[in-house]
């Protein structure tokens, strides 16, 4: 009984103290110019970053190679300021709409890449991974809008865990897809004996497959956690909760797809090209779920 009481009280903990709406609007007005500028600047900065990595990958430009590391660090700092400014201005972390999630995802992918680059000293996958971060940031900057008033349930601590787990899951799945894509490109070059840039610059096939698989496992575990928390929390918060909501069904379908893929790899030894194609298909579903289903079909589980 005591543990149930604790669990219930845990669910009620607010993620940020709910402040006065008048004060919230005042904060928002003060920080709006900075937020507006950064909202436009972020895609431009990511474009510059992708350009720097592209120049090194395709043209081997030395100047760009010296610029890469400082640029990614600076961009992550600026991104941090942007996210911080949004949090202070609107009195809630940027996790309440798909576009806010996308800018978080962009930062998360860039940070994950910086970690990979630091650990492996390989910069040759940066162009591809950071292109994905750029794409997410562009979509976010185009669609993001200011939410000064949000429902009370979005202040819950549980939402913080739910979103963090989902974010980690989506970041890992995105990385897995990029590695899968690189695997297929390299596979094609090796098979066709047309050895070009991809062949010369990318790590070997087995390494790409390992990186894709590890990211996928991490993504699957995180998604499992996010779904579990969601299934406990959502029925308590939403009166119109339905297990047949398109977003829930979509997310569950993605989870099943990854579960089948990972089990098949474990049980039947599926690997190589087949697994990488599956990874890309699964990522296609993830993207579809994040965009079309989340924006247009979901009834309750959409906060835009």
């Amino acid at each position, binding site marked *: 009984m005591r543990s149930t009481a604790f669990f219930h009280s845990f669910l009620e903990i607010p993620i940020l103290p709910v402040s006065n709406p008048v004060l919230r609007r005042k904060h928002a007005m003060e920080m709006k110019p900075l937020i507006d500028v950064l909202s436009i600047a972020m895609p431009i900065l990511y474009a510059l970053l992708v350009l720097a990595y592209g120049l090194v990958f395709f043209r081997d430009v030395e100047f760009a190679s010296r610029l890469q590391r400082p640029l990614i660090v600076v961009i992550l700092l600026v991104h941090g300021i942007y996210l911080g400014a949004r949090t202070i201005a609107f009195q809630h972390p940027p996790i309440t709409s798909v576009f806010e999630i996308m800018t978080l995802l962009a930062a998360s992918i860039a940070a994950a890449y910086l970690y990979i680059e630091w650990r492996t000293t390989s910069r040759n996958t940066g162009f591809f991974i950071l292109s994905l971060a750029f794409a997410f940031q562009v979509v976010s900057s185009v669609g993001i809008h200011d939410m000064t008033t949000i429902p009370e349930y979005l202040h819950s601590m549980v939402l913080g865990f739910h979103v963090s787990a989902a974010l980690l899951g989506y970041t890992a799945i995105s990385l897995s897809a990029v590695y899968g894509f690189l695997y297929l490109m*390299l596979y094609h070059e*090796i*098979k066709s004996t047309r*050895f070009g840039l991809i062949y010369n610059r990318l*790590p*070997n*096939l087995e390494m790409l497959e390992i990186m894709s698989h590890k990211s996928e496992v991490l993504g699957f575990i995180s998604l499992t956690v996010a779904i579990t928390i969601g299934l406990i929390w959502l029925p308590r918060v939403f009166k119109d909760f339905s297990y047949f909501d398109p977003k829930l069904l979509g997310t569950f379908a993605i989870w099943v797809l990854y579960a089948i893929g990972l089990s098949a790899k474990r049980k039947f030894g*599926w690997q*190589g090209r*087949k697994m990488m194609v599956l990874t890309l298909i699964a990522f296609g579903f993830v993207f579809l779920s994040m965009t079309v289903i989340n924006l247009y079909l979901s009834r309750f589980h959409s906060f835009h």
Partner: protein
Amino acid sequence: MNLVSVGISHLTAAVEIRERMWLSEEELRRAVTKIKEQFYPECMLVSTCNRTELYGIEGKVGVDAREVTEFLIEFKNAGDAVRTDHFQEWKSDEAVEHLFRVVSGIESQVVGDIQILNQVKEAFALARESHTLGPVMNRLMQTTLHVGKRTRSETGIGEGAVSVSYAAVELAGKIFADLSRKSSLLIGAGETGELTLKHLLGKGIGQVFIANRTREKAEALTRQFGGTVVDFENVADAIRNVDIVIASVNSPTYVVLPEHVHKVMKQRSNNPLLIIDIAVPRNVDPASKKIENVFLYDIDSLSGVVDRNVEERKSEIPKVESIVQEELQEFLRWVGSLEVGPAIQQFHDLLESIRHQEVEKNIHRFKPEDRELVDLVTRRILNKVLHTPATVLKQESEEGKEETMARVKALRDLFGFSDNGKDRHGA
């Protein structure tokens, strides 16, 4: 710069001539010691399958390069096959530039040859052990090795395999992450197959299996390389347990068919399989290439890889030449700085001795109270005369201007300075 180089290489002589001039380590030691005694106070010898070259710093007395060449031919007792005109000669800046080009691999028979850097490094080490390196050659050694490393790290001159056997190994490295956890099967005992296996072993391949029609030959190879013998009849089955297959059997029909590969791929859970078919006629049915996760290459596709790599290496030569020029100028600047200081000092000493003699000779013509002043004034005149040329020469030397060395030489020639710091006047 009084560096001299004489050498024979693939550009000037055929292999049967070059091989006569190849020196073993022991011969190299003896040769450099004798060369130091007879010709150059600082010297080193590089001897590889493609070149034998001597680099030496001339002492006080000039050396006729032809005499050195004749010495080398006589040392190898190769007068019946090798002539002095098989040798080329480089002097001064050209000799340094030639050494930098050699170590960069752009003078190699196979452009970008990686081995030459180690061979030059060993030659320097051997010369050092034989006490034939002085300050200039030591500095030349450091710069040369730096040039070799720079050209390989900053350009693509050494990238891409340039032999069929190495191209096969490079492919393996692009498919598998850790070769020590992989195994290979050599079918047949062809020369290229053996070489490929050798390269794979060099890359740390985990396990080796060898199959040959003549079992004794396979056993002989396992004694040479290690590994396990597999019955030739069981080759199709053996593929199941390996990751890399090197096929080089002399057979008029295919030894491995697509159905074998299909079956094997199922058994090995679709694990990637690299098949290097270097036999002519081919051992593996090319239809096997269509099977997923099977990477099949024949001799033509590997030769194509090699040709492309060679072309890519050649396209890197301008970048290498630019590094060579950059390092050459830096080295000459250093040499220049070595020579400017002593030349200025000698010039000063000469003028000072003349001043001193003239003052001594004429000092009695002055009143005793003026004599100190005479000495002081003449010293000042001397210092003022010397100030501008000394400053200009030092500055030019620091800036690495090409004409500095010519000016120093002119100064030495005009005033008769020798290398031992004495001028003709005995100052």
